[in-house]
């Protein structure tokens, strides 16, 4: 009797994950984005593709770090083919830098929307398109309702969306699956060596639905993420966070 009860509970858990927009990874699909120990924070231990991820930055320095982190993820997402769209209102991204993170800049289509109100329209259209692998949207504001629309769009098309929110004064509730904050930290070289080392970030996973938030120090080295400090789980999973 007890065994069946556990079965029912685990079945219900799976169902609830599915209703919330997660899909169990297809057998054989390579969903490892090279995040290493960070992946343990996600439900099922896999980075949720086909979902919206929110990144918050308040300074241009943070935006640059976030851009690097996203580019590292996009590199792996583009391996299966598909287009990458970078949608922004005021873009400062320097395309040649993407190459250092393994993304061919000529594979990225940049859409510099002239009116801010069109940014989310273009993003939603792009997220609905199944030929697109990933969409990066640079915006300032994202209301709860707008985030819901984006999340609904990707649940059908299985496109991975990144929303990079610049100059956020107050983080409001959104329907995104995760919320990240990435800031640069001092790079390390071998002792005694002068200069600047590999890009190193403090990656903070503030919120993840059905997962375990945490923070890590990650370095981008030799075209992959290297976790410097082992995962530290802040608090147990809070459902419907």
């Amino acid at each position: 009797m007890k065994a069946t009860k556990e079965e029912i509970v685990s079945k219900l858990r799976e169902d609830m994950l599915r209703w919330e927009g997660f899909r169990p990874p297809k057998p054989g699909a390579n969903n490892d984005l090279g995040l290493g120990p960070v992946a343990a924070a996600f439900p099922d231990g896999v980075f949720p593709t086909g979902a919206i991820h929110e990144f918050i930055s308040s300074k241009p320095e943070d935006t640059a770090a976030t851009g690097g982190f996203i580019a590292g993820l996009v590199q792996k997402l583009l391996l299966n083919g598909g287009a990458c769209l970078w949608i922004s209102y005021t873009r400062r991204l320097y395309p040649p830098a993407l190459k250092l993170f393994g993304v061919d800049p000529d594979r990225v289509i940049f859409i510099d929307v002239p009116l801010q109100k069109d940014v989310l329209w273009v993003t939603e259209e792009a997220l609905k398109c199944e030929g697109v692998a990933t969409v990066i949207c640079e915006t300032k504001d994202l209301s709860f309702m707008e985030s819901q629309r984006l999340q609904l769009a990707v649940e059908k098309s299985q496109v991975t969306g990144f929303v990079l929110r610049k100059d956020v004064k107050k983080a409001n509730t959104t329907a995104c699956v995760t919320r990240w904050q990435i800031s640069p930290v001092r790079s390390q070289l071998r002792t005694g060596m002068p200069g600047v080392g590999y890009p190193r970030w403090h990656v903070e996973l503030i919120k993840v639905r059905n997962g375990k938030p945490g923070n890590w120090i990650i370095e981008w080295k030799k075209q992959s993420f290297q976790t410097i400090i082992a995962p530290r789980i802040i608090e147990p999973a809070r459902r419907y966070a």
Partner: protein
Amino acid sequence: MPKRFTSIWFRRLLTDQKAIRQPELKGKAYVFAEPDHGRMLITALTDEARKFGVTEGMTVADARIIAPDLQVFDGIPGRNLKLLTGLAEWCLRYTPYVQLDPPDGLLLDVTGCTHLKGGEKAYLQEIVSRMKAAGYHVRPAIADTIGAAWGVARFATSGLIVPEGTHRNALMPLPPSALRLPGDLLTKLRNLGLHQISSFIYMPDSVLRRRFGKNMVLRLKQALGQEAEYLFPLKEPVPFTEQLACLEPIKTRLAIEIALNDLLERLCKRLYGEGLGLRSALFTWYRIDGKNGNIKIGTNHASNRVPHLFKLFFIKLDTVAPGMGIELFVLDALKTEPVSDKQSEIWTSKGGADNEEVAELLDRVAGRIGSAYIQRYLPGEHYWPERSPKTDPDFKKAAESEWRTDKPRPMQILDQPEPIETMALTPDYAPKLFIWKGEQHIIVGADGPERIEREWWDDPGEHRDYYIVEDEAGSRYWLFRSGHYDAKNNQHWYLHGFFA
């Protein structure tokens, strides 16, 4: 197929138009007059005025004596051309080849068009009744040659449809003025007693040429079809075009959408059969009050998929102003290209930007925000940071050279380098600290300098020495000193970018 031409003669173009504008003038005697050598000469008049004995070319003063109630309006030179152009556009529904025939006519190449209205008789009937409903009195004629149609329309008393091959007989009883000849030549012919074409049609060419000039022979031969004559169409006909004429004027949005969808389906079916796709299309609507408007769309790659093209039009469909109602929709394929073979794309699963779905997405986005804002970068062979990525409108083009990875480049770059205050060891060390926007950054690590020279053939100016620096908080910046160290001028350090 033998050629058939229609000449439409607007008997009283200007006065009819006046009566349409001011219905109270209907049935009244009025004329248009234009100044000529200090007199007012009558240029157009109604049948009612003609009954009094008024004719074209009479002075207004003379006419007023014959007909005291005569109303005189100022004629506007060139007005007839403007009216004819509008009417010619309206006549495009009958045939794609319409030419203006000043001062008061239109010429239509109706070869292969008449059966659409149920034969030549019904075709002319329709033109007459539609024009009459609009308020114009017309006389159309159909013949094998332009010249014969012109003459018959204006001078024949009956038999406006000249059967194939009988235009010679039809011309026989007509006066010489049916041959489009200048006035002095007509006077000469009249003085010689040649009142009908039949009286000189059998004269040898050499005789006619010697007496009346070669223009006369040319016109005669053109009317008989022995000399070629061509129409210069008002609009270059588009090879792929579809029309939808509506029984009832259309006003609602839903009906317009249905009409558009219907036209697209018909056009795309034809294009599909030819293996072509649309690159650019024009959707035109004609309103019952004579106004028209259009929407133009363009695509990134040739497409003949109806739902996609419909979406592109749909974005702009708000600009349709139906007014009193729309009676005719026309869809022209302005530019077509062979569609790429879809079969091959199935195997490459998710392609890049040349993927069908992505290209359609980009079309939609371009329709909303404009195609100039969608960009793709290729490596430009320049060291200067502002120029090293170059934009390219062709989404299928592959990079000609590799992206450079040997020099680190910042993730974020400022459009305009921002001046900063620094403290640096002279002459060419990296700064120890810098102040940007009032905030002080103490530098703990630095790489550089990387000197980038300007392209002197493009722009003169100082070179830049770039440093990658890291401050205490861990933020990484791209700074440069413009030119060499100069003790007098301290303000030459700039912040240009942020590293990840």
